[in-house]
């Protein structure tokens, strides 16, 4: 009788420990989902801020001053280089692409994000419409695509 009692207690303990483990895993998974969503929102906010900065300032410098919304692919390379170095010092990776509406690449800067390497902090992309100064007279419509990762 005594032995049977010990066995039942042991059985109850195993159930308790098993259930506890399962619940802790569920809690950890919920927290991971929450943290992932939070990180995604933060990355999106960051990408949007960077895209704004590029559209209004870094990529919009022309001979007669800054012209927000009008990308100058010729003179932007150096500006973009120093801006991405500034971000790199804060641990932020940056890839910038400017494409015309028909998909032609007008400007590309920075490495493409490595999806396997960025498993724990996936890259986040934002695209905004811009005008691209091709010559003095012709300015085409295009898209500024900014990808950031930490």
């Amino acid at each position, binding site marked *: 009788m005594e032995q049977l*009692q010990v066995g*039942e*207690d042991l*059985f*109850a*303990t195993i*159930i*308790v420990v098993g*259930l*506890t483990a399962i*619940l*802790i895993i*569920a*809690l950890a998974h*919920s*927290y991971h*989902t*929450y943290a992932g*969503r*939070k990180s995604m*929102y*933060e990355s*999106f*906010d960051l990408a*949007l801020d960077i*895209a*704004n900065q590029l*559209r209004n300032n870094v990529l919009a410098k022309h001979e007669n001053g800054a*012209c*927000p*919304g*009008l990308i100058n692919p010729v003179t932007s390379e150096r500006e973009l280089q120093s801006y991405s170095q500034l971000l790199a010092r804060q641990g932020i990776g940056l890839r910038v692409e400017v494409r015309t*509406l028909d998909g032609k690449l007008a400007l590309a800067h920075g490495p493409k994000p490595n999806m396997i390497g960025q498993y724990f902090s996936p890259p986040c992309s*934002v695209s*905004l*419409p*811009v*005008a691209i*100064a*091709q010559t003095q*007279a*012709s*300015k*085409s*419509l295009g*898209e*500024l695509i900014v990808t950031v990762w930490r």
Partner: protein
Amino acid sequence: MDKRGQAYVIDMLLFALMVALACSLLIKASPTEPNAVDDRYAANLAQSTLLAFQHATAGELGGFKYTPDILAVQIPWSSGERDLQHKTLAQLLVEDMFCNLRVEVGGKDIAPLKPNQEFDRQVRKFLKTVLDEIVGGRFDYRLVARTMPIDLSPAAQVHFETSMESFNDNGRRQVCSETIRMCLPIPRWELLLGIQDIYPVSNSRLEPEALVEITLSLWSK
């Protein structure tokens, strides 16, 4: 199972209940309101679109030509066609306004100053194609361009309003609305001459600059 074992299981069930509650709270809790993120992106998209409209030229989007309606008589050696490929998209919209200004007296339209409805139709079609391409996939939109009313007298004013949109019903949530203002590129004397053909107005009554307001509103799909 003795009493101690039963107590374990009851404790465990209570613990499970609390953990399940914590999980559901965590899954439901959002670090940011998803609508706030949408709104912020939409506002930036609308701003960018309006900025791009001020710079992108019609020539790079297939060009824009039209024949003014005011030429009632066909001239055999000239098509009368105007090529506006050098104009930006915003300038096309502003020119559309200039070509279709209306005089309103006592709440009723008298007549357009320069009737050019075909131009208005073509500009709207052209801009709608562009908006469909850059905004249409993400949000529904409404672009409204209007002149700030120019008062000629307490009862009379000059105005124009045009709009293009990607949807018909109003039951959706408006995500954002962005506005830019531009000057109507029309010399004061020319505006005065045009208005005086229809409505007597003195030079002193006319405001120095006619303003145009272009508003882009985005709506959730």
